[in-house]
């Protein structure tokens, strides 16, 4: 470890590793720190990711792909099922990852690009001078260090402190976090080609249960509920109820827990000498909780903007605004849309969810996106989902595409 770098990245998840890799590839002197002694472990994730998007940033490797799926099946409280798949072409739409291996591969990519990586190294504060972040205070093996950097990138996950230290309030309210528990189960009867989702206030209040195949009759069986619904019954209690009913003979070979930001976009993610990426920037999807690709996409932008800022010797918030503007223009719009959807769906009763489920039952929606699914639901249930009409405006192409799929 040196005492100064161009960029210090705090946290070696997909957001941090991607930022470090991109910045190092651009010729910057980069340090990537991870507070745990093992990158990627314990996992806090259902591990599902869109295959097409992911390929933009990393070459698929069987070492970190547990399973490939053809689509999703969403179950309403009464069992009505909506299917999204591409049966005709047999295209596989998603991967279920082995995050322990995947996260390490991304960190390795960053290292091979030239970044220095330090594990078991925790940021404990920021070095501040004249209103600029100038590096971090860190601890490694019970020793304290001051590490100077022109730019600090906070990729420190749901429990992020980097933003708070720089004056950005990233505190989540109970309604803004999905509190999750998951078993890796084996010896269970699952459909290996589909990710399954179960919704309903009784089984998963303001959240959902997921069953994601992991290969060889294994699956990630998990639940996420919105924080303010947790208390008397917690994520683990509700998961146990589901598992007992659905997979009575199944065996649990791993247990994990986690919190996922579902708040939508926050006010700002840059300050003088600082950027936030991934869960630290609350870039996970408010409806699905998915954030792997979002993190990598934002990390790639952050790395490029860091390189540009160093080149121009300007790391002010004004210059770093380029990152903020770019991620909001793409990902930010998706998150805003998801938040509108979340707000409507959280007010639906189980009976209304059943109505929605039955409206599309037996129709294969094809390999559609979330917006495609929503459009199909909207068309069939305009009265119930009238609040969502705004999100379809100006997306004529998607409307047409979706209507073709629904009508075919």
């Amino acid at each position, binding site marked *: 470890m040196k005492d100064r770098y161009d960029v210090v990245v705090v946290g070696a998840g997909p957001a941090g590793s991607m930022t470090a890799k991109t910045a190092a590839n651009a010729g910057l002197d980069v340090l990537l720190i991870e507070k*745990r002694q093992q990158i990627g472990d314990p996992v806090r994730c259902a591990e599902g990711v869109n295959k097409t998007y992911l390929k933009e940033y990393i070459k698929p490797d069987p070492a970190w792909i547990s399973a490939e799926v053809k689509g999703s099946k969403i179950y309403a409280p009464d069992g009505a099922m909506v299917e999204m798949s591409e049966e005709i072409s047999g295209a596989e739409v998603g991967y279920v990852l082995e995050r322990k291996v995947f996260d390490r591969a991304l960190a390795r990519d960053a290292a091979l690009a030239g970044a220095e990586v330090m594990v078991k190294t925790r940021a404990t504060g920021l070095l501040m001078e004249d209103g600029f972040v100038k590096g971090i205070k860190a601890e490694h093996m019970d020793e304290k260090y001051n590490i100077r950097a022109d730019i600090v990138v906070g990729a420190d996950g*749901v*429990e992020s402190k980097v933003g708070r230290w720089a004056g950005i309030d990233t505190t989540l309210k109970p309604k803004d976090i999905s509190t999750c528990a998951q078993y890796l189960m084996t010896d269970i009867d699952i459909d290996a080609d589909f990710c399954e989702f179960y919704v309903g206030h009784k089984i998963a209040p303001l959240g959902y249960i997921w069953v994601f195949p992991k290969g060889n009759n294994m699956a990630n069986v998990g639940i996420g509920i919105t*924080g303010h619904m947790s208390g008397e019954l917690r994520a683990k209690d509700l998961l146990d109820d589901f598992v007992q009913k659905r997979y009575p003979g199944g065996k649990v070979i791993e247990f994990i827990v986690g919190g996922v930001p579902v708040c939508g976009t926050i006010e700002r993610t840059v300050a003088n000498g600082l950027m936030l990426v991934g869960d630290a920037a609350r870039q996970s999807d408010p409806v699905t909780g998915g954030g792997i690709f979002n993190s990598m996409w934002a990390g790639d932008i952050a790395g490029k903007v860091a390189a540009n800022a160093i080149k121009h010797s300007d790391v002010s918030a004004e210059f770093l605004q380029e990152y903020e503007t770019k991620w909001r223009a793409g990902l930010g719009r998706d998150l805003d849309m998801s938040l509108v959807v979340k707000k409507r769906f959280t007010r639906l009763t189980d009976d209304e969810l059943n109505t929605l489920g039955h409206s599309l039952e037996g129709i294969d929606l094809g390999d559609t996106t979330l917006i495609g699914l929503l459009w199909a639901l909207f068309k069939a249930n305009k009265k119930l989902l009238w609040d969502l009409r705004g999100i379809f405006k100006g997306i004529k192409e998607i409307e047409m595409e979706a209507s073709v799929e629904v009508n075919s």
Partner: protein
Amino acid sequence: MTVKVNRFKCGYCGACVSVCPPGALELIETWIEVDETCTDCGICAKICPVGALEVPK
């Protein structure tokens, strides 16, 4: 008084850290530390997926 963490239940996910208004909690490898800024508000205890946190009465 500060919130009590049952380390035999805790799954060290850090969810509690993210909701703590004063930032009194910190996840360090496999355990949660609580500092003196804790106000006993109980938000962390409410959202914990396994019920590992308890506000002393």
